[in-house]
């Protein structure tokens, strides 16, 4: 790996760990392996959002040409958000694409992602199903996103009605996450979810 990339990542790694945000447990970063090619990021769900109280794990891959090219970042923790794929965790964010600048750092990336959780851009979606629900049935979107935070990202409380519906599908032999995806994308209509799963 190029010298600049290693130097930068070492420095940015320290910058994140020593930052005020890390002290407040809002962001964090860990090394994966010892060659600085891959890191594990962590962001806390911002307050007053359906992600409040949740912790999201991120996969960060540092390219050879870093910092002239952006790091490749995706969500490892499953999340229900218009700009993040509910299937792959791929992120649609301008600074991770053409708006990247070489002077940006891991800290700015993590903070931008946290800001994205608080302010989604449904008109530039990564996940069209989520974006549709966000625009057309916003209260259901908020409940669904909160329930995903409960199931996947460590939030203690979750909607009991949703839990019942998931269990109902699980009784039919469907996996928990599969049931969650089907119900979420069918606006929690059990009949439609069954139809989608078994057709």
């Amino acid at each position, binding site marked *: 790996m190029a010298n600049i990339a290693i130097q930068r990542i070492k420095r940015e790694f320290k910058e994140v760990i020593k930052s005020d945000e890390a002290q407040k447990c809002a962001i964090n970063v860990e090394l994966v392996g010892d060659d600085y090619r891959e890191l594990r990021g962590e962001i806390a769900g911002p307050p007053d959002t359906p992600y409040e109280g949740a912790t999201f794990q991120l996969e960060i891959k540092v390219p050879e040409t870093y910092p002239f*090219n952006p790091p490749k970042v995706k969500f490892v923790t499953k999340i229900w958000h218009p700009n993040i794929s509910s299937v792959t965790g791929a992120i649609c964010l301008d600074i991770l694409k053409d708006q990247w*600048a070489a*002077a940006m750092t891991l800290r700015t990336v993590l903070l931008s992602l946290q800001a994205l959780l608080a302010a989604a851009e449904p008109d530039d979606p990564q996940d069209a199903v989520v974006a549709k629900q966000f625009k057309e049935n916003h209260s259901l979107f908020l409940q669904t996103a909160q329930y995903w935070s409960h199931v996947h990202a460590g939030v203690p409380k979750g909607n009991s009605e949703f839990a019942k519906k998931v269990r109902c599908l699980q009784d039919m032999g469907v996996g928990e996450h599969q049931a969650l995806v089907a119900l979420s994308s069918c606006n929690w209509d059990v009949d439609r979810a069954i139809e989608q799963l078994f057709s």
Partner: protein
Amino acid sequence: MSDEEMEYSDTDYDDYYGNDYEGDMDHMIPMKNDPEYFDVACLTDTEVERLLNESVEQLSNSIQVTPSLAKLLLHMYNWNQVEIVAGYRQDCHRILASAHIKPPTPPQSTTAKDPGGENEGEIICPVCLGTIAPETVGKLTCGHKFCKDCWSMHFEVQIIQGISTGIECMANNCQVLAPEDFVVPLLKHPVLKEKYQQYAFADYVRSHPQLRFCPGPNCNIVVQAKECRAKRVICTACKTQFCFKCGGDYHAPTDCETIKRWLTKCADDSETANYISAHTKDCPKCHLCIEKNGGCNHMQCWKCKHDFCWMCLGCWKTHGSEYYECSRYKENPNIAHESAHAQAREALKKYLHYYERWENHSKSLKLEEETLAKIRARTQNKVMAGTGTWIDWQYLLDAAALLARCRYTLQNTYPFAYYLESGPRKDLFEYQQAQLEAEIENLSWKIERAEMTDRGDLENQMDVVEKRRTTLLTDFLQV
């Protein structure tokens, strides 16, 4: 190509119509009153560069900026010198900021930016985190300082991605662009310099309203026209025909937006359409299966000798006479009262009516290319057999070229008619379209069966067809 050849001399007109044989083309010279007349020049990249450099030099002299900045300004303002000069005289800061040459707000002074007001020798490059000596500092008008090695690396990464005129500063949220004279000296490999120039050249041509790359495969010609209009251009080098405005296939009398909508629709619906329109049809009288092997839509069953129209399967006699109705789609007047299902069926039927005719003429054009080859072979035989000379048979080649041109226009009348609202204008259009179609089929029939003795009749027919075509274009071509 020399300068003299750039202008349209008489010898260029054959090229103008894409004919690669020599013939008596007098009647095909486009006149200024021809609705399709369009004054264009085909330029090589050296000529284009000269043209662009002239603009750059003019602007650089008139507002006293470096040629490199002038280039950037022209590119950002689509080469509109008048607008730039006027805007620059009024408020030079606004113009430079909106072209991303200067930051929207003036940069802070360097001493305020360096922590603790350290001396100039101790600057840390925010990208590689190394200390940089003052002589290796590089900065744009925004004042963000980086070391020259990082700038080089940044340019290299950007150029590899195909970015040239749009390379921005490396600082967060800074959109200031790096001009050519800043980028090029920092590029380390000659290959990168060449690539940068190549991409920048392409960007300049694309932003120039008077210039278009020829869309022909591997063709390096750039076409120049005084106005950006949806008119036909024929590349003098590769003979590709295209519409100057949209760069797609030429499409008169339909306009650029309509043809785009039509082609998207055809691409989406083609499966259904393909399924419905078969390649063979049965003779309406004796039901013998007939394959269409020529361009003419006037069919004659080889068995029962019944004359009929390939499109509507109606008797040809009613086609040939005063009112040709096959091209006109008859809308169901009671459609508003029908069920949604029936309306959908009617919509599909309407689309298929136009699509089948569009597709059919496209096939006819291809088949008529084969007819041309047959004409050549026939001429050869006739000349060898002593029936006339080459010159006596040239008129047939002219006739075939004219037929192709007219059928091409006819094909493009169908998307136009499909999107035209019902009313007197549509009635008039479809009447003229029907007239043109009838005459084209007549001409096609005559060409396929031409003997030397028919020459007068055929030339008369050519004249009629071309007049019908120009009349239709004069009335409906609005570009």
